[in-house]
């Protein structure tokens, strides 16, 4: 996608002279597409051969009727609602997309932050680096209230396209030298006070279609597309609308994107918002003051200003719906990826730099390629992380192990009892105790990291060194300030991924969460079932499909189907309120029919979450008395071997139908369908409002990562997520059969069905015993 965007940039640079306020983007619907479909990174500029006879494409200089605010333009840059730098060392890197105008403009950066009171200002630093140049290097000195830092960006530092920003903090405690004290250190960056300011007020105006990539975020890290589709209620329009949303979502690729679909809007786009207007030219006549030129004759894509809607509106139009679809298709062409081409990386730069490599099998990656530089550290606890991606058919959770070959060193003062821990997605996955004193250089020390916590898509692997020293035990005044290096991780360390079992499973929402599986791989359109008449439902469905497309890294065709009967044997997505969901669908997904009536009635009243309360009580009573000791042993066994009562089940019984609890406000369920040929996924809520709100929460970066298992519910009131694992799983073959893959699949299945393995060993051993008896009866002396 990044490459396609670049190509697009080149194309437009070539057409540069013609670039004005408006850039109609026109092409014939069929001919040029069929010749260039193999890859999104087109080597030849599409527009150059696009114009078909009789389809005027030349850009027209439209009168600049829309006044843009004369105040300096702001762009928020923090891609998440919360942004905390915790511990003694923290570092976050990501990229923001700038239009050429933004890059050319004089600019400055503002950083609003607040820190914990225990952070010692004189020895703690906050640093901001942009494109490798340090802009801010300031003491961390804003306890209590939020304060701002400002720095001018040198001319020429910004560039059109992606710009890398790194925020790094080095914090020390005022008085305490314990490991525990490092958890009290935090600096919170305020997303609403952290932004770029462009001197040129016009810099925020978009001129090209792909300038939509510069949509950015609002002051709370979110991105919203106002999708105006006057004909949204027509069934024929839906696939086009969804496809357009997916294309835009893939282009912008921000972490928290949502779509507001409406028939009309008058709202100018805010920071982090973008207006996308789609419809036939006649439809749009009532919305836009001026239609883009050519829209009455040919598929047209244009970025235009509008007196009512403000600047920078993406308009996709044409004389008929077919032409509009063609325009949508050509836009999608820029970002789509053919099914047979695998991604080598996940495009994550808008929230994590560098892009996360996708590992489809055995691989060896140097830390330097994963974005971890050599890191020297003098404090107590240091954490650094990288990310790798695995596909949805990753099936090695139960048995798999990756290896980190760690190049590191620790100094003489580090005491035994220190440790190097590895976390996968914030779950502890390996611990290497430091057992020798006197310092040591570790050369490619193999650390086995369980893959139990791996999930499809992006996985964060953090390495944390916890260092104990004599000096810290004494903790003389000023000891926290000591700056003698204690520990270093070298970027020559490697991450080694073995070949792992690959097979898709359904139902498994984790696959949907990771790479949009199985919809992302479908070669047939996915049936989308929803209530079109409700803009909220349509917005929710569009938001969901955009999210799935971003995860899948490609566009997903949908079609709308009215009857559930037509869905047997097909992949389908249901975005409906619970009462509108067909009973047959609920039954297939294992949801109790009574929830149609009962769910939602209690949702208004906030009932105490029984499970949460129970957990709290259990924690309070843990460890007391002999029963506590027994349960501690149980915990140890559980921790060490992951053995639970579940381990000893061979035949999984059918679970009773699930009824969402009163505190759940959104439910996502998935299952193979009645025909066993496709996967059905339902996103539902008691009301359309709850569905719309819940969908934003679900598709946000944090919510989406929670999706796993057979059913996941989200509680908007409590923020709690609960999951139900799948009892019965269908396997979906995703790679051609090979013995080694089959072996690994068996290993994983047997690892999660321990008793089955025991049984298999028993049966085979009996067979072997009998065969041996037969052999001994045939050979050697017998009597």
């Amino acid at each position, binding site marked *: 996608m990044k490459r396609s965007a670049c190509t697009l940039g080149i194309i437009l640079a070539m057409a540069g002279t013609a670039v004005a306020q408006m850039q109609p983007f026109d092409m014939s619907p069929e001919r040029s597409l069929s010749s260039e479909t193999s890859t999104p990174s087109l080597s030849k500029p599409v527009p150059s051969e696009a114009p078909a006879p009789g389809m005027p494409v030349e850009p027209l200089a439209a009168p600049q009727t829309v006044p843009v605010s004369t105040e300096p333009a702001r762009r928020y840059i923090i891609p998440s609602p919360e942004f905390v730098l915790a511990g003694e060392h923290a570092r976050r890197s990501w990229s923001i997309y700038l239009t050429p105008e933004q890059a050319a403009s004089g600019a400055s950066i503002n950083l609003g932050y607040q820190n914990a009171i225990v952070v010692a200002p004189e020895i703690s630093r906050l640093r901001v680096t942009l494109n490798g140049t340090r802009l801010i290097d300031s003491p961390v000195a804003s306890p209590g209230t939020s304060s701002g830092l400002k720095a001018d960006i040198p001319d020429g530092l910004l560039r059109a396209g992606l710009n890398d920003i790194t925020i790094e903090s080095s914090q020390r405690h005022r008085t305490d030298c314990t490991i525990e004290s490092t958890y009290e250190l935090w600096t919170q960056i305020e997303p609403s006070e952290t932004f770029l300011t462009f001197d040129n007020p016009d810099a925020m105006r978009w001129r090209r279609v792909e300038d939509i990539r510069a949509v950015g975020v609002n002051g709370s890290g979110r991105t919203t597309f106002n999708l105006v589709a006057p004909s949204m209620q027509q069934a024929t329009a839906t696939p086009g609308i969804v496809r357009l949303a997916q294309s835009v979502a893939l282009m912008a690729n921000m972490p928290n994107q949502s779509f507001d679909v409406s028939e009309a809007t008058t709202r100018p786009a805010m920071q982090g918002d973008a207006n996308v207007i789609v419809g036939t030219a006649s439809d749009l006549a009532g919305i836009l003051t001026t239609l883009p030129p050519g829209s009455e004759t040919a598929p047209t894509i244009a970025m235009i200003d509008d007196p009512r809607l403000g600047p920078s509106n993406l308009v996709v139009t044409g004389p008929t719906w077919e032409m509009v679809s063609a325009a949508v298709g050509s836009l999608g062409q820029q970002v789509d990826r053919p099914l047979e081409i695998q991604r080598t990386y996940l495009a994550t730069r808008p929230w994590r730099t560098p892009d996360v490599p996708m590992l489809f099998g055995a691989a060896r990656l140097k830390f330097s390629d994963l974005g971890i530089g050599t890191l020297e550290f003098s404090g107590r606890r240091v954490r650094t992380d990288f990310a790798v991606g695995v596909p949805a058919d990753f099936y090695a959770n139960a*048995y798999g192990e990756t290896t980190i070959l760690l190049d590191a060193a620790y100094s003489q003062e580090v005491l035994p*009892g220190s440790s190097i821990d590895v976390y996968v997605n914030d779950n502890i996955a390996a611990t290497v105790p430091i057992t020798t004193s006197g310092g040591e250089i570790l050369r490619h020390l193999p650390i086995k990291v369980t893959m139990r916590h791996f999930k499809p898509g992006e996985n964060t692997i953090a390495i944390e060194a916890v260092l104990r020293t004599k000096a810290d035990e004494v903790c003389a005044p000023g000891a926290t300030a000591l700056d003698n290096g204690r520990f270093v991780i070298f970027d020559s360390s490697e991450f080694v991924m073995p070949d792992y079992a690959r097979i898709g499973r359904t139902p498994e929402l984790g696959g949907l969460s990771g790479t949009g599986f199985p919809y992302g791989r479908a070669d047939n359109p996915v049936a989308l079932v929803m209530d079109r008449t409700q803009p909220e439902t349509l917005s929710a469905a569009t938001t969901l499909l955009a999210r799935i497309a971003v995860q899948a890294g490609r566009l997903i065709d949908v079609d709308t189907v009215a009857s559930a009967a037509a869905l047997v044997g097909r992949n389908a997505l249901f975005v409906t309120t619970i009462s509108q969901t067909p009973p047959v669908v609920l039954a297939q997904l294992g949801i109790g029919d009574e929830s149609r009536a009962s769910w939602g009635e209690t949702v208004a009243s906030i009932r105490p979450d029984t499970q949460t309360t129970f957990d709290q009580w259990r924690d309070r009573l843990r460890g007391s008395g002999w029963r506590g000791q027994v349960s501690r042993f149980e915990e140890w066994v559980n921790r060490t071997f992951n053995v639970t009562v579940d381990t000893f089940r061979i035949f999984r019984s059918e679970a009773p139908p699930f009824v969402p609890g009163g505190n759940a406000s959104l439910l996502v369920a998935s299952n193979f369908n009645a025909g066993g040929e496709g996967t059905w996924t339902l996103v539902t809520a008691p009301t359309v409002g709850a569905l719309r709100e819940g969908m934003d929460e679900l598709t946000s970066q944090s919510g989406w990562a929670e999706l796993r298992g057979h059913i996941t519910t989200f509680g908007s009131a409590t923020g709690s997520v609960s999951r139900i694992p799948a009892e019965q799983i269908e396997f979906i073959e995703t790679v051609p059969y090979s013995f080694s893959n089959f072996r690994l699949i068996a290993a994983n299945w047997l690892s999660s069905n321990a008793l089955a393995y*025991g049984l298999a060993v028993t049966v085979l051993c009996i*067979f072997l015993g009998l065969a*041996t008896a037969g*052999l*001994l009866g*045939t050979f050697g002396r017998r009597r």
Partner: protein
Amino acid sequence: MQKLMMIVLWALASAMVIMLITLPISLETQLVAGMSVLFAMMILKLLRPDGIWRLIALAFGTAIVMRYVYWRSTSTLPPLNQPENFIPGFLLYLAEMYSVLMLALSLFVVAQPLAPRPARVRSADDDLPSVDVFIPTYNEEPELLANTMAAAKAMDYPPDKLTVWLLDDGGTLQKRNSEKIGEANAAERRHAELQKLAADLGVIYLTRDRNEHAKAGNLNNGLLHSRGELVAVFDADHAPARDFLQETVGYFGEDPRLFLVQTPHFFLNPDPVERNLRTFEKMPSENEMFYGVIQRGLDKWNASFFCGSAAVLRRGALMETDGFSGISITEDCETAVELHSRGWNSIYVDKPLIAGLQPATFASFIGQRSRWAQGMMQILRFRFPPMKRGLSLAQRLCYASSTLFWLFPFPRTIFLIAPLFYLFFDLQIFTASGGEFLAYTLTYMIVNLMMQNYLYGAFRWPWISELYEYVQTVHLLPAVVSVIVNPRKPTFKVTAKDESIATSRISEIGMPFFIIFGVLVLGVAMTVYKVYAEPFKADVTLVVGGWNIINLIIAGCALGVVSERGEKAASRRVKVSRRCDFKIGNQWLKGTIEDVSVNGARVLVFGAGMDEFAKGNVSELRFKRFADGTEGVLPVTVRNFERTADSIAVGCHYFPSEANHHRLIADLLFANSRQWEQFQLSRRGNPGLIRGTVRFLRLALFQTYRGLFYLWRSIRSKPASTEVATKVAERRA
């Protein structure tokens, strides 16, 4: 065709098991699978520990062992770039793989030991082949030889077809003409004495000019002078039972390609380990595992080999190889390898038909074992049975098992030292967490012990193999190393069997055991220290410490082994219960011979008063011979006596003055082989893994205490003990 199908079926089963075993499954599954297998093996053992069920249980065990090997090979070796960890770690790995290899070979060998053969029907006298009996001797006492010769002569066989030869290597011309006058005189005396004794007993005395090729040369000299179709060989202290030839010769008629019928060696006295641990009466002897199971297992694969004595061989076969082979110092096994490779067959008769003596002191026991170990190493080096042409695959595996076994000092040493590497030097030679140890290593160890119990249960109790291997390792390791470095150097040394220990003392070669014990105790102290000082790796420390404690328990038990008990009775007594008459004055009183030994007997005399006995009295014992039913009178001296409920128990010492008296003693001792069998059966019995372990722990605890007590006493009275040691040393010289 059926054979091929069986092979295919078995290969299929194995391939499937291997496939399942080599799946990289999770720890949790391993734990569950390990537990299920242990459970299945226990159930099988309780229900049916034999036949097909035994094989199924062994298949279970094999699966777990293979899983361990797979895990051990793929996940536990230290990284190559840490040579200080990798090298010892890899050595440990090799040691473990050796153990697994030996287990695999043992499994093959004893997969299905042949059931004892039915007794032979005696064929008509005319058909019987002529037999030469060879009794090679070097320095044994004439009394001992007299018993053996008398027993050999008394064997139930047509006298015209039985010739007994005393092959004396102690009275050769070379010895008699020695430059050392003292030795020459002794040899001359021995030559004359034995010649007379042999003549009295009707045995042909034969000696030679030069002591070339030790025992093999001596036997070949015998072959050169004799003519019999078959040759029976008895060591000087191995007296045959009357039915020895009846039980063995018949097989030669059935198979013209048969070259060997081997019978077990049964010992009347305990070996030093048994004597010092006092287990002789209760527990099967060490060699019973070999003669009770392994030789029967070898017999299934036509690989039972010659053990130097108590065997009958075919002259025709021996002639093919120019007699007994003498490259190695274990000529017996070497000869068998050679003949097996030429297509000759052997069989093993599992019935004790001779009774012999074990070396008495720990030092001579070690000397004997050194000879076996070195000899087997020489065979491995010069003949290399696994690749020897002419041997069947099964025979190759069998001989590989028998010869490679003697490499055990290496792994034993590594197992002993490995935990200390971690405890003292912090070397990570086995990269695994506490949980993995539990799920893999512990299951493996338990399964290993269970498999041993399945294979040898009634013949070898838990942990006894480990003890024997350990006590030998300390002195065998240098011996094996020296033979590997210098394969032609070792020479045949005759094991002394007539020593006795007058006072309790620590063996003259026992000191290393105390030092090792001390180091291991330090290791335990280090474990405790580490657990408290370094709690972050307490799990691994506890596992390694536990391993060290197992070593310590065995080493503690070995302290008892090297603490030689003083002994009143010089030799093993065999229960007999035979009617007799005991002469007091001129009166013959009725009595029962309760037990006998090579030196004397205990007789219950009825109808006599205490005052009629006196210590040192010369008296006579009259009894019917087992052999032919005629009565004989044996002179004895009274050593002690005591009153029992209705009789007086008299301990008396034989006082033989003529050859006929030796025949009587041999008849008392050796005539009835059934009594030996009964004795062996009385000790057999499988105590099971748990009971066996508890027993061993109890034994080890007591023996540790006894060993330390002996040490303390010897330090307190230093001069006295050195005196004893020198005395013994002189005797041996």
